[in-house]
């Protein structure tokens, strides 16, 4: 598992071995690893959406929040480094409730009607809802009518399905180096944009590499020509690419 690049605290020279407790189990880890990474190494699976192996941590979806003894606030496991003697709880009725509500908020924010989605059955958001037992959305649907950008020859972007996890932004910036994507606006008005908010097909920076499409957890980014439930994403390329890039470093 590759490590996400979290801002490193100053003055930490060499990573040390620390021991901590996760869900009552004593585990050991390097001091520069995140709680998420250590938990997964120990087969404790913490739900995530915006996190993706091989990309920098973002800490925005709040699904991976964990309870740390002695810390008043819940912290995101994907970007929080382990510390000696830490006692982490990754699952509790309270965390489950919050995680379900995060999903409800996402489903209420935009139009995520699975039935007509290219990613139906292959969608991380959908799978997460099933996994976390989100049976219904108790909040009113906001359903703004958003644009569908089909101007690219190979791919398309449906903003109605976007959950603003920014995986596409990060993979394009960190791996492909094109930085075609970014976010515009803020708050509930935030949207993913390419270049100066231009149609994707007119982007002068996009290399048509398709990495963003493959890391997108929902049907927001998809390959052209795919019909409902036909869009399968491949993300296994990422850890290798990251590994190859990092191995060049001294």
């Amino acid at each position: 598992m590759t490590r996400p690049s979290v801002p490193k605290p100053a003055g930490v020279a060499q990573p040390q071995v620390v021991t901590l407790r996760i869900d009552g189990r004593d585990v050991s880890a390097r001091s520069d690893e995140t709680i998420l990474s250590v938990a997964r190494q120990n087969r404790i699976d913490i739900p995530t959406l915006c996190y993706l192996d091989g990309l920098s941590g973002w800490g925005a979806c709040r699904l991976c929040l964990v309870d740390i003894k002695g810390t008043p606030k819940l912290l995101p496991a994907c970007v929080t480094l382990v510390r000696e003697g830490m006692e982490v709880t990754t699952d509790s009725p309270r965390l489950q409730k919050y995680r379900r509500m995060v999903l409800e908020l996402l489903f209420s924010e935009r139009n995520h009607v699975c039935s007509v989605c290219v990613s139906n059955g292959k969608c991380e958001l959908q799978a997460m809802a099933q996994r976390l037992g989100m049976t219904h959305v108790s909040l009113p649907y906001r359903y703004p009518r958003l644009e569908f950008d089909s101007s690219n020859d190979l791919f398309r972007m449906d903003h109605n399905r976007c959950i603003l996890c920014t995986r596409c932004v990060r993979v394009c910036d960190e791996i492909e180096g094109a930085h075609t994507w970014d976010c515009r606006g803020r708050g509930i008005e935030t949207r993913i944009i390419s270049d100066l908010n231009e149609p994707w097909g007119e982007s002068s920076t996009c290399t048509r590499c398709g990495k963003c499409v493959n890391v997108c957890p929902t049907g927001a980014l998809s390959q052209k020509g795919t019909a409902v439930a036909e869009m399968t994403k491949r993300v296994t390329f990422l850890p290798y690419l990251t590994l190859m890039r990092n191995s060049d470093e001294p």
Partner: protein
Amino acid sequence: MPREIEINPVTRIEGHAKITLKLDDNGVVSDALFHVTQFRGFEKFCEGRPMTEMPSLMARTCGICPVSHLMAASKACDQLLAVNIPPTADKLRRIMNLAQIVQSHALSFFHLSSPDLLMGMDANPAKRNIFGVLGEYPQLAKDGIRLRAIGQTVIEILGGKRIHPAWTVPGGVNAPLTPEKHQQISQLMPEALEIAQRTLVWFKRNLSRFSEEAAAFGNFPTYFLGLVTPTGGLEHYDGLLRVVDARGQIVEDMVPPERYLDIIAEAVEPYSFMKFPYLKALGYPQGIYRVGPLARLNIIDHVGTPLADQEWAEFREMHRGPVLSSFHYHYARLIEILYGVERIMELLADKDIMSPRVRARARPNRDEGIGVTEAPRGTIMHHYRIDEHGLVTWANLIIATGHNNLAMNRGVLQVARHFVDGSKIQEGMLNRVEAVIRCYDPCLSCATHAYGQMPMRIELRSATGELLDQVGR
């Protein structure tokens, strides 16, 4: 004193509707209006969506006949791609479409209409439903449930799920038929054939019991429209448009479906969300025509499968020409079930049916596409326009029930005049008004159905709004 009776909602049909009966000073029905009270807006909200989404999106128009919309939309999309889909894909789509006809007709006949036929129009509403039928005519009810299940199972085997399968895609289908699936489907067919034949025998024996209904239920001359094969045979998936008049004269023939607008036009009325298509040549509102099983059996020269051909000949012998009574939609439905099962068996025997070549791939090459198929309830037409990026800019849908809209209004009026006595509200009489609607098996764009006891209130009001009488159940 002019008065109105309102039936709201109409039960045991697919969707929400209500009926208003206007009474004149003598308590005689002067007008009848069939309102579709639901706004759906499919044509509007598919704008801006990619064409590849259309089959599944449009299938959501209905939970009963999603497959029909799937077919029409897929065919319209094939046109947008400008491809000829592989022959195997064509055959596989046909199998699914026929399975849909079988299961939907079974639902309409056994679940929704048989209670009226078996228990009588005036029976206690608490018993006048499929559960009541199950108690008194267990074999028939079981046959109905089984037949529907077979149809649905075929859809599920092919498409992966019973309702809203996403297997049919622009350019073909997304998975070929495997030997296991072929075997599974083949094994179901003999039983289906048996049930279809058994039911037809039973129905024909009891036909005389319903002579009054047959005479009064939407029994009037209209035109009939539907698809036929190039040789004039029965066709549900692809084909050419034909219009026949009440005497059986062909007035339009072998019209490519893309030219549907040469034949029909649409009108809008303020009291209903449903559009009113009419025959262009005759104008509105004279251009009344019917579609669906009855229309299909009225326009063809032959069916195309041996057993169904025999039944069809017998059917057409009843009136020596087109059958005009809407009541006989039921009869026609049973013949189509038989045809469907026979035809599926033929298609399964095709040597290429398991070919892996089931999809043609292309980018959108045309900016307009029209797909026309026969749904259980009649002809459906999907018409899309797309922009250079393949996003839908405009859509027009004419669904089966829409074609029948004018005819249904006419049918309601006819029944009301025959059965309704303005001085008194009787449950049974109102049920007949509903039943005539139910003959057309209207699919009012929704998957809501009600069994058994349905809250219902009919109010009789004077022109000034004064409540004269009311009945509740």
